[in-house]
């Protein structure tokens, strides 16, 4: 009998559990925690895609997600809030939000495409803080208080009354994104991207346009993050600059690192961990409002002890249980020594 791949077993069980979730957990879990887990996972997956296949750890994913969210908010609200109040059909809002986010992502990516490693991290962090400050200051599109009353499309919402609908929409989106990212990583484009990650100089001398591949990957990841942003504003009905501040940027980084920076599955594992800790730590008396101290400490421990995150721990357990040695140890971008800026 062929050995069963434990990853696949866990994947199928997780999928069944997710689909059946409304049957066995409370509406609060489905409507608040699990939905939030799924769209945060989508944003984190865009970060993990860039880091795992492109070698680019980006802190701009939350900025992109916020740009998509703000465009949807401006396009689809109709009076009674800040912003442009264009009053479009929510689906046109989705199209506009994703299109603008991808265009901005293309620009961001093009400017950062000649940098790698910590340079890339610093440049994308700059984007993130500037996006946050821009939405805080430019009162035409948002201002400090943000945009309220953002509607979901009629077939999905109203969200408060039909929490399960949005949950299944988000679950479907997360699955589609997962499959799409897996697929893209195996296309010629994805393979070239991995070549660029491992040895940009060699890829350049083979005739590949390294900067263009990085830019395209960044724009594609922006699409993924934008989907997360659209789902976020449908779920929350409101977006303000604090939704994309430095704290939010770091939260998504924490999710990706705690899950595991080198496997897409890590995005949702980390997101589940994050929303549960976020939700329940408030009730522990000595933590209370100090949630971020706790999450910072967990993040520190993970980075110091298990840079592969929870998925990395799982792989180690599987490897020990099946008597195999650990896989190639150099896949984790955190542990790889720096490739210096090359071209």
């Amino acid at each position: 009998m062929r050995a069963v791949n434990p990853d696949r077993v866990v994947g199928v069980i997780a999928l069944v559990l997710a689909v059946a979730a409304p049957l066995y957990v409370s509406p609060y879990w489905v409507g608040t925690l699990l939905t939030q887990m799924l769209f945060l996972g989508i944003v984190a997956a865009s970060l993990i895609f860039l880091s795992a296949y492109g070698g680019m750890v980006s802190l701009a994913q939350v900025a992109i997600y916020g740009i998509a969210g703000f465009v949807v908010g401006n396009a689809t609200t109709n009076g009674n809030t800040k912003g442009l109040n264009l009053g479009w059909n929510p689906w046109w809002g989705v199209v506009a939000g994703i299109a603008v986010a991808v265009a901005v992502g293309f620009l961001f990516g093009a400017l950062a495409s000649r940098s790698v490693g910590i340079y890339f991290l610093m440049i994308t962090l700059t984007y993130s803080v500037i996006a946050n400050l821009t939405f805080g200051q430019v009162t035409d599109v948002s201002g400090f208080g943000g945009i309220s009353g953002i509607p979901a499309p009629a077939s999905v919402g109203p969200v408060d009354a039909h929490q399960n609908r949005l949950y299944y929409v988000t679950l479907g989106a997360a699955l589609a994104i997962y499959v799409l990212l897996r697929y893209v990583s195996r296309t010629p484009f994805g393979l070239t991207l991995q070549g660029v990650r491992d040895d940009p100089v060699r890829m350049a001398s083979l005739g590949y346009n390294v900067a263009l591949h990085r830019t395209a990957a960044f724009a594609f990841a922006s699409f993924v993050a934008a989907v997360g942003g659209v789902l976020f504003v449908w779920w929350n009905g409101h977006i303000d600059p604090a939704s994309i501040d430095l704290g939010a940027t770091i939260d998504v980084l924490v999710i990706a690192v705690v899950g595991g920076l080198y496997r897409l599955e890590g995005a949702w594992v980390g997101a589940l961990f994050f929303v549960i800790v976020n939700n329940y730590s408030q009730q522990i008396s000595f933590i209370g409002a100090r949630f971020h101290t706790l999450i910072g400490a967990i993040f520190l421990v993970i980075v110091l002890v298990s840079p592969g995150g929870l998925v990395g721990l799982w792989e180690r357990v599987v490897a020990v249980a099946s008597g195999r040695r650990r896989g190639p140890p150099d896949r984790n971008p955190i542990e790889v020594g720096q490739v210096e800026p090359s071209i």
Partner: protein
Amino acid sequence: MLLAVLVIAPALWVLFLAPTTGKWATAFGSAVHDPKDFLITLINGVTAAALFFVVASGFTLIFGLMRVVNMAHGAFFLLGGYIALRLQRNLVGEGAGFGLTSAQVNLTHWLIPALVATLVVAAIGVTMQQVFLRWNQGQELRQALITIAISIILADQMLAHFGGVAEDIAWPRNFDRFVSLHVEGIQYTGTRLVILAIALGIGLLLWLWLKRTRTGMVIRAGVDDRAMVSALGINIQLTFAIAFAVGSGLAGLGGVIGGSFASLAPGVDANWLLYSLVVVIIGGMGSLGGAAVGSLLLGLTTNFSAAYLPSSYTYYSIIFTFVLVAIVLAVRPLGLFGRAA
């Protein structure tokens, strides 16, 4: 070509074109029309750059030598400010509960807190480096993530201990007055000139330290080739610790000055991390001269865009910070004075 337009067009606008009436009315009009406010904006830009330089020079010193991106630099800034704030209120004593005015504060009430805050933050920086970063040398991303984790914890603890209300450190009464510049009859804020003097002093000391002392020589050699310096029998770890102390201390001192000049509140750490990042991205990472030029460009860009955008659009000035970064990255991905490592 496009770049030339992007640089020349704003200059023409500020010097000659900016109107005072109509749809595109600006606050002051062009430099030709109102030279006094042009000069004030120019000096404001330079003095803002002075504070950027104090903070960013510490950031670039650490990065240049150790390749550590200290993402906790903004948190160190805020911590330095808060330590000085508390110390100053304790020193002055009664009547400090609702904040101090500079009439109550003399020079020692400002200098002692500033000195203590600088030293404490320097000590915290070295501790972080020795405990968490030293054994991860060479794993740059991991070190950056470690400093991010520390910054999350520090920011949250500062929120718990110092609250969410914006507070500021009082300048000593000797500084807090207007000074006549004898040009166009400008009466200029004394404290801004003090900041400029402090920054020039720090720049000069750093330059002398790096160029004229043995430690400075080791640091410059270490920036170029750490392994070789170490192989020559020099204790590079000691040099790393010294550089980290100085770099962090500068963030703390910057926090004291920034907290006196503006205010301290949660979120201020993110702004100052941004300024440090922008300065080193445009100036070139690890270069002191680059930090000076980067600070100047950032200070002038923020001040001129805020003053010379049409009055109904001034809130777009933040975009110009991004434009500045974008222009530099498009031309020189490693910054104006950056070199490939």
